[in-house]
């Protein structure tokens, strides 16, 4: 029987919950903070900002990252911008409107109180990032510039060219470095978290693998913060960095942290199309391009065919033969509809035989009109680096011919279930940024991931974590010789031995690519009960092959990137099953989760609020057993739940 989860949302009016809650949260005196040890796993925007803010308060923080430097974390790749409700454009933006847009964008499957808090702290993020030296775009008078993103009718996105993620990460990394210099934070690079240590129901530390020496190490702490990002790489091809993985999340899930809405993933509409079988990743073209780019395919199939064969150029197609299908279907938002809507529309046109590109799996993103009306210089200043990147990859000049784009796996809204304090179902284990589930529901709006990462790290966790720590004053760290640490460490060593002993000859990449194809086909843009059910068998076959065929040459006592990939894939295979299970159980369409059985007659998502207005949180029940479903009912007291319309 499914249990009901309590998110511990504070009482009071929506716009005062966070203020009142902060008054009630307990604090730790400065003298005690230096005796409290915190582990932060991950150094993206969420992890770096949390570690820096906690270091500033005087806690002892150990930070772990997989890369050779914290600055490599995948937040660095975010291009377009970061949202905030500053209303600098006087276009009637407000905290309330940002909250409404985010909740509606997520198709009413996120938690009202968390989303409001996110909108509430958004302005402080911009203030702090400016103070940290982020060179945001400015107008000639020196004021901050904004642009528009999908799913919103105001201009609230702050940006630093097409490198906003990089600039924000450099700021958070700078703040982290300052704490390292002050001795409050220690950074452990090239370390992968292998397991969580739980003692008497409380997170008390982690086990890591030093990726250079292969040493398995034990780190105790009073609390553990997970900031390890999302799991898009389940699909093999995604816009995520190659090393982004779900292993820390999966290990925490296996230790008792519930996994919420694992089937909610985001497929980004504007990416460079797949070109060949050896492709290792997909490259995003920022959503900001949809400010000036218009999306179209030919109206006529025969023209599409000639484009596919290469006997016609896009510029040969006259204006009245072009179908600007987003402007046609969604006149109110046009090319700026949310990502899930744009991705489905692109797939629909391509499935109807109207796709372009050799493969027929692409649509045009055209700047002809913008170049005409705004001039090349303006377009170059706004998107120069994106146009250059496109040309480098495709060998085609987007100033002359339109870009060709196609949807690709990009972000995961699902993640570890957390309460209002961002604590998981394991006491003392917190999850922030993309690693948790709470703010984006069934679809995330553009420029909101950066906002959430920094909100959690700079302004929320530094208030809620001390409340937990205040109950641990005077408590000593567990000894490394504690049986829980010894057992966890032995388990990790055994797991690695098992993998090394497979001694197969199949590269991990080959198996991973097959997992990706399976998931893309059945648990991607469009899902059906039949397709999802069949996926279980496919996953079982892949798991068996993984256990028998995987080839990992070399030793585990040195750098071994095949071993690293195998560890990630083993966890991806487990998580994929959970994602499919979640997608199968949710017999409604919402946001990016589109079930063919549940659609309107126009082919739009059809929610079923009566049965599915809840968060699905899954509990691990051991190998071979089915995970157990727990529900957190979603209540919307302050806004009226409506059909999500962008027409």
């Amino acid at each position: 029987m499914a249990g009901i989860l309590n998110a511990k949302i504070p009482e009071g009016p929506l716009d005062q919950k966070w203020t009142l809650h902060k008054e009630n949260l307990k604090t730790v005196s400065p003298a005690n903070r230096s005796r409290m040890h915190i582990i932060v796993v991950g150094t993206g925007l969420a992890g770096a900002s949390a570690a820096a803010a906690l270091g500033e308060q005087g806690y002892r923080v150990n930070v772990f990252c997989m890369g050779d430097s914290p600055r490599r974390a995948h937040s660095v790749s975010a291009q377009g911008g970061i949202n905030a409700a500053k209303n600098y454009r006087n276009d009637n933006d407000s905290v309330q409107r940002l909250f409404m847009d985010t909740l509606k964008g997520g198709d009413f499957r996120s938690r009202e109180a968390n989303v409001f808090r996110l909108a509430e702290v958004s302005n402080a993020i911009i203030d702090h990032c400016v103070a940290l030296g982020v060179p945001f775009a400015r107008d000639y008078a020196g004021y901050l510039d904004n642009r528009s993103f999908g799913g919103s009718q105001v201009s609230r996105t702050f940006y630093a060219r097409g490198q906003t993620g990089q600039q924000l990460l450099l700021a958070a990394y700078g703040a982290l470095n300052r704490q390292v210099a002050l001795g409050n934070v220690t950074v452990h690079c090239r370390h992968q978290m292998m397991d969580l240590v739980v003692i008497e129901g409380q997170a008390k530390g982690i086990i890591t693998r030093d990726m250079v020496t292969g040493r398995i190490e034990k780190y105790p702490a009073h609390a553990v913060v997970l900031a390890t990002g999302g799991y898009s790489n389940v699909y093999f091809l995604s816009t995520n960095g190659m090393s982004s993985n779900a292993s820390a999340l999966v290990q925490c899930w296996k230790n008792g942290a519930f996994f919420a809405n694992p089937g909610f993933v985001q497929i980004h509409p504007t990416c460079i199309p797949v070109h060949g079988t050896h492709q290792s990743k997909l490259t995003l073209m920022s959503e900001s391009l949809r400010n000036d780019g218009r999306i179209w395919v030919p109206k006529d199939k025969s023209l599409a065919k000639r484009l596919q064969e290469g006997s016609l150029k896009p510029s040969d197609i006259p204006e009245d033969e072009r179908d600007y299908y987003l402007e046609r279907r969604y006149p109110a938002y046009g090319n700026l509809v949310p990502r899930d809507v744009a991705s489905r529309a692109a797939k629909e046109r391509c499935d109807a035989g109207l796709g372009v590109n050799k493969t027929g799996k692409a649509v045009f993103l055209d700047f002809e009109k913008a170049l005409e009306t705004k001039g090349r210089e303006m377009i170059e200043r706004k998107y120069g680096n994106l146009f250059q990147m496109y040309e480098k990859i495709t060998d085609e000049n987007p100033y002359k011919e339109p870009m060709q784009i196609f949807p690709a796996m990009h972000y995961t809204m699902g993640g570890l279930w957390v309460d209002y304090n961002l604590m998981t179902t394991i006491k003392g284990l917190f999850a922030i940024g993309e690693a948790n589930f709470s703010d984006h529901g069934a679809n995330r709006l553009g420029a909101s991931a950066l906002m959430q990462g920094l909100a959690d790290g700079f302004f929320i966790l530094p208030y809620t974590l001390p409340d937990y720590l205040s109950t641990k004053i005077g408590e000593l760290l567990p000894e490394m010789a504690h049986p829980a640490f010894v057992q966890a460490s032995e388990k990790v060593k055994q797991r690695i031995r098992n993998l090394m002993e497979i001694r197969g000859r199949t590269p991990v990449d080959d198996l991973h690519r097959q997992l990706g194809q399976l998931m893309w086909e059945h648990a991607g843009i469009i899902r059906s009960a039949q397709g999802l059910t069949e996926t279980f068998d496919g996953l079982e076959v892949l798991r068996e092959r993984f256990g028998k065929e995987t080839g990992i040459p070399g030793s585990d006592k040195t750098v071994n990137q095949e071993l690293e990939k195998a560890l990630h894939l083993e966890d991806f295979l487990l998580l994929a099953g959970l994602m499919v299970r979640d997608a199968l159980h949710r017999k409604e369409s919402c946001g990016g989760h589109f079930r063919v059985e549940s659609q309107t007659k126009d082919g739009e998502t059809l929610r079923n609020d009566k049965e599915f207005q809840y968060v699905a949180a899954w509990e691990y029940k051991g190998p071979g057993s089915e995970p157990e479903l727990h529900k957190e009912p979603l209540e919307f007291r302050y806004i009226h739940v409506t059909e999500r319309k962008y027409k």
Partner: protein
Amino acid sequence: MHFTLKIWRQAAPRAKGCFEHYAIDQVDGDTSFLEMLDMLNNKLVKENKETIAFDHDCREGICGACGLYINGRPHGPDDGITTCQLYMRRFRDGSEITVEPFRSKAFPVIKDLMVNRNAFDKILQAGGFVSVNTGSAPEAHTTLVSREKAEESMDASSCIGCGACVASCKNGSAMLFVASRVSALSLLPQGKPEASRRARAMVLKMDELGFGSCTNIGTCQMECPKKITVAHIARLNREFLYCKHSDLQE
């Protein structure tokens, strides 16, 4: 396309390394250089041979993890890109391609093509930030920043910390890397108060870590994948001298 690859193999930091030759065929021109290395590594797995270690992550030229010396140039023959943005159509079919790690005293080899660039983190820890605590920032529009300054700061701040400047410099100097951060922050009013202290602390740390001195050769500027210019080194020098001058007066 097919290629002969001459690749540096080295088992461990202090082990003796050497070049090994590998043949690879059926490579499509649209395959990236790193995807070509993936193909080679997967071939090695099938032969149960140890794969070639190299750093990489985002594969879109922004994380700064990848960095290979290809045919004698960091990030290969093209200007203004990282290794991951290099495509095989850039090479002549049938040619031999030499692949080495970024070599510098301050970047010891970890394994094969993977080097330790931890020294960059240490330089930034010495002062590459604005000392502001979370929660104490004033409203963002309290201080205006001219568009020109913001754009120039952004140019400098584009540095991805890949280390091509160090690897290409005959002195193994990290001046362009240090200058990019010093310049990015000192151009903004928010970074101004600490500008000279920052420059001094970072330059001293750079010297301590074994990087060489700048002799104005300018290869760093030529090889920088983000086209950061030596003009920023001039600004670094100015901040550094200013600091030294104030020290003397005290």
